[in-house]
């Protein structure tokens, strides 16, 4: 892989997608949200996880690959599915504990993995409005592990979010999710950004790997976190995408470069 690094050109977005894809196991049932999660799920399906089951909120359950959808429900993502059903049905699968892995985007995430997709500032008089939960609250409430993907900036990595749309580990106290009534052994497990990858230890976000292959440094990562982030003692370099993964990403997952190409942006510059 290190041999590739010298010749292989890839962006921070490519690294994000590859790191996310590596999280998907062959036996996983993956609930995929709109955007980058689709790229990760498709990359995994074309490479190391051909048997994973992909669930899309409108009511799509499938084990074959499909053209990258520009939303969640398209005729491409529907056609030749294993089952076409409803949002109700797939959400019940989650609530009853049958979805191993959830993949969501996020407006903001905080120290304890709480996600804000609603407002910045006061709810009734906000300085910024996102469209709201969609299915994200359901995914993070139900799935055994939820992986959050977002581009990182200090504004989006706050110590405490203004509004909890999707509950993480709340204020970090152990057992709080369960006390609230959320299913046991659920919650955010990994956060993947264009700078690095984070895990949760005792309900708190910990920096686990840095995208060094695209030139990111620890200082850069720390500068884009709104609190004094814990750094794992065995911090590592993110495993870069392989030549094969990059080929598949460009030729099969996103041949028209809608996401990986068209939306390729410099790290840390996102709103």
């Amino acid at each position, binding site marked *: 892989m290190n041999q590739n690094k010298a010749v292989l050109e890839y962006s921070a977005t490519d690294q994000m997608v590859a790191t996310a894809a590596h999280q998907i196991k062959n036996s996983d049932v993956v609930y995929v949200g709109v955007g980058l999660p689709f790229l990760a799920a498709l990359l995994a399906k074309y490479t190391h996880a051909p048997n994973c089951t992909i669930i899309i*909120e*409108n*009511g*799509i359950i499938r084990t074959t690959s499909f053209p990258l959808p*520009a*939303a*969640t*429900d*398209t*005729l491409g993502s*529907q*056609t*030749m599915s294993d089952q*076409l*059903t*409803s*949002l*109700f049905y797939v*959400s019940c699968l989650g*609530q009853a504990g049958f979805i191993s892995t959830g993949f969501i985007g996020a407006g903001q995430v905080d120290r304890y993995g709480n996600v804000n997709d*609603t407002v910045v500032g006061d*709810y*009734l008089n906000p300085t*910024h*409005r*996102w*469209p*709201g*939960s*969609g*299915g*994200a*609250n*359901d995914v993070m*409430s*139900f799935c055994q592990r939820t992986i959050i993907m977002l581009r990182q900036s200090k504004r989006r990595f706050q110590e405490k979010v203004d*509004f*909890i*749309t*999707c*509950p993480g580990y*709340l204020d970090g106290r152990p057992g709080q*999710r369960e*006390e*609230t*009534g*959320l*299913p046991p052994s659920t919650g955010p497990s990994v956060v993947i950004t264009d700078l690095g990858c984070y895990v949760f230890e005792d309900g708190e976000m910990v920096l686990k790997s840095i995208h060094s292959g695209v030139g990111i440094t620890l200082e850069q990562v720390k500068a884009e976190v709104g609190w004094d982030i814990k750094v794992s003692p065995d911090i590592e370099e993110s495993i870069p995408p392989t030549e094969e993964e990059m080929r598949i990403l460009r030729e099969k997952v996103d041949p028209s470069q809608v996401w990986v190409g068209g939306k390729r942006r410099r790290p840390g510059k996102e709103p």
Partner: protein
Amino acid sequence: MNKVMTMKEAISKYMKAGDILFLSGMQHGEPSAAIHEIVRQKIEHLTLVSCLVATSALLLGEGLIDKMVTGYTSQDERSYAIAKAKAMNRLPVFEEYSHFGVSLALFAGQMGIPFIPTKSQIGSDMLKYNENIKSIECPFTGEKTGAVRAIVPDAGIIHVQRADADGNAQKWGTVGVDQEGINASKTVIVTTEKIVDSEVIRRDPNRTIIPGFRVSAVVEQPWGAYPMHLAGCYSGDMWGFYGETGPQESYEAYIKEFVYGVNDWDEYLKKRRAIKGEEYFNNLQINMVMSEPIVTGY
């Protein structure tokens, strides 16, 4: 009983100002033609219950909605529909749920029960601002759980691939929140690509999403879900619609030309074809995948 009528008749007869309105089609096959007719008839003070219905932005922009029961709506003022509603002092109240929350409220409505327990939304701040989601104690275990209050829409509209004149309606592909939403609704309007013989329905009755006796009106309307896609019928142009109705100037042009500037959806389609060109519509044609017919009988 034959319930076939025009869109104009169906909307004026079965909808009224102040209705709680359910719109089907969660990013798949929404009743666009019916929505345009509601705007044309200026049926106002609506409470809208729906998930991801693209053309409902027109109801919002034209100031017809008092309250939106929603899981996901752009409320950013960079959206012209929002800015316009706000300028007219017609910005609705947003009652926010997760998508499953909206689905559950409708499911409880369909079941005829006052509320339904759930593990979704608890632990979130949505409960602070939405009095129709609560944290309660399970009466059996004493553990905390969530509860969502039932919603019973006054009117529900669903667009389907085929229905018979009685209203037996069949939709396939993803059904989002259609099943619970349309079955929770008191009055049901079915709009359909094609009215088929009842025998067609009865040879494949598992596909029926709502039975005729629950339906008040049936409207035959080809391309009734355009600009959204509809399984087995046509592909969509959702992003084209968002682009066209996003900026102020083109939104106003769209409303003038394609809502108030036409009498009905057939005229709308004719105008779209003239402006967009045949090739645009040819590109929406699908490569058909045929399934094996199912067998019934005794």
